[in-house]
């Protein structure tokens, strides 16, 4: 009964806050997805990689939230620092991604057909996974709400279950992005996607540095 109630609560929270998640991740997902190849399969692989890494971020955060209890609701100062740090990392990852799209081997190194932005041993790291992980641990409002709830639960398993179900519910809202596979890719589309990624990256870097410096992000 308690488990079903918990799952229902996580599901509702995820479904209700899904649009906010999509809005929050949109500046990262849409341009990077457009910079990948065309077709449902490539875009499906991108989203699988992105969402898988995002789930990993959620689970890691859920474990930390439960272990540390109060981490999910850190004070304003600590939250700004975490948020600022993630912004800076996201900005750098996006810039790297935009640069990597232009390299000749970008679509083959990763092996999965996705743009690779780094190498671990012999394997390329899909940029989608890096972006998914970073957006997964970003402290957006729905995520903080889920984190606070997870921290109140009685066991680590329950916290992870809560975050897992929350993730599945928010993921529903990402499915329509597969439709971007229909957009025909040519040099112009790739150029626009890369330039848009760079602009978003510069914003994240500016905002992140401002937050790390303890400044407001508005004048």
């Amino acid at each position: 009964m308690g488990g079903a109630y918990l799952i229902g609560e996580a599901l509702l929270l995820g479904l209700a806050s899904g649009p906010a998640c999509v809005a929050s991740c949109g500046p990262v997902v849409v341009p990077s997805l457009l910079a990948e190849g065309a077709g449902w399969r490539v875009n499906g692989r991108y989203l699988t990689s992105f969402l898988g890494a995002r789930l990993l971020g959620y689970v890691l955060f859920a474990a930390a939230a439960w272990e540390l209890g109060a981490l999910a609701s850190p004070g304003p100062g600590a939250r700004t620092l975490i948020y600022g740090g993630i912004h800076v990392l996201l900005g750098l990852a996006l810039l790297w991604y935009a640069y990597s799209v232009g390299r000749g081997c970008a679509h083959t190194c990763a092996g999965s057909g996705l743009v690779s932005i780094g190498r671990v041993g012999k394997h390329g790291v899909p940029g989608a996974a890096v972006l998914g992980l970073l957006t997964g641990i970003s402290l957006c409002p729905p995520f903080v709400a889920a984190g606070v709830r997870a921290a109140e639960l009685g066991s680590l398993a329950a916290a992870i279950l809560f975050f897992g179900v929350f993730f599945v519910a928010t993921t529903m809202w990402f499915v329509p992005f597969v439709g971007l596979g229909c957009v025909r890719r040519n040099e112009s589309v790739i150029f626009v996607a890369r330039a848009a990624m760079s602009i978003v990256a510069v914003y994240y870097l500016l905002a992140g540095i401002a937050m790390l410096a303890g400044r407001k992000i508005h004048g």
Partner: protein
Amino acid sequence: MGDAGCTVYPGKAQPRGWGKALLLTLPIALWSLFMSMRGLMQPQRAMQIASGVTAAFMIVLFYLMMKTASTYRWRRWFFVALGVLFPIGFIHNVMVLRGSMGIPIEEMIAGRTPFCFLPIPLLILPAALTKTLVFPGSILPGEGMAGGGMAMMVGLWLAITLVVGKGWCSYACFFGGIEEGMAALPKKAQWKKLDPRYRLVPWAVLLAMVLLSLALFEPAYCMWLCPFKAVSEYVAARNTVGLVQNGIFVVLFGALVIVLPLLTKKRTQCTFLCPFGAFQSIFNKTSVFDIKIDRTVCSPCVLCQKSCPTMSLSDESIKKGETLLSCMKCGACVDACPKGAAVWHIKGTPVSVKPERARLMFLYAAWATAGMFGGSIITQGLETILQRVI
């Protein structure tokens, strides 16, 4: 004897007699006077003079368009006047109302920001998903300075846009005039080789700004990238970030509106940055008016390509006999073409069949818009100056 230099090409519009030109100007003259009526009936002498001068200015320019059969050079006088006088009237009003050009974030949240059309594409997704406008203000009546008026302005913009398409950027935009004026100053361009890929940057800015506006729930372009903040109202700089924002505005204005137009003779802000322009390009598909290149007459000398202020003609597009989607219908290419191959055109009709009729129909719609939007702004700017003089 010497007739080769006087060859008359059938597609090239010929100058008219003054009587016919006057007759064709009559509808616009009536419209301009109607638009100025309110100002002419005001008790303030400065306003009466400003309204009268504006009406005369619009009528004379249209008459010259009819008389000489050329569009671009006369339109440019209007457009530059609009671009220069807009900041004068606007800054004066802002100073009177607020005492400063700097707008604090609280004022923005309270909706005390005048309407601007540039954020329109940024409003669509947040409004569709949450029924909330991220631009300061509301579409509901009585909700502050940008309240019900904003719904009316968006409605007017849409109606005009469906007819003239991206012609909005040449006849109604009150920002593009300064750079067009700057581009007109040098005799020759210093920088002639511009990478055509950069024409795509406005689409990237549009994509990034639409997504960021949805994520941040604020008009990201107005907060971070609009060069015209430098000559309208900027973010009140109360901390380092505010200074950075204003620094971006000033650098972009200096580079894209002043320096690059002088070097390239192009409208560089419109060509390489403006996200609204990219968005407006889409409506060139709905507009019935476009510009075509008659391939049967075209040499090609590429004079049209060189004259285009927004790089909206490429070798490929000329071969296809059309302009790119970014064409602002300013008429520069039509005027520049010595053979009359570049012609105004109504979709669905054969190319080069009565192109002057297509030009007239477009100009009536575009100049009526110019008189309605630009006319009131020119009047306001002139009145501000006259108040100091009289």
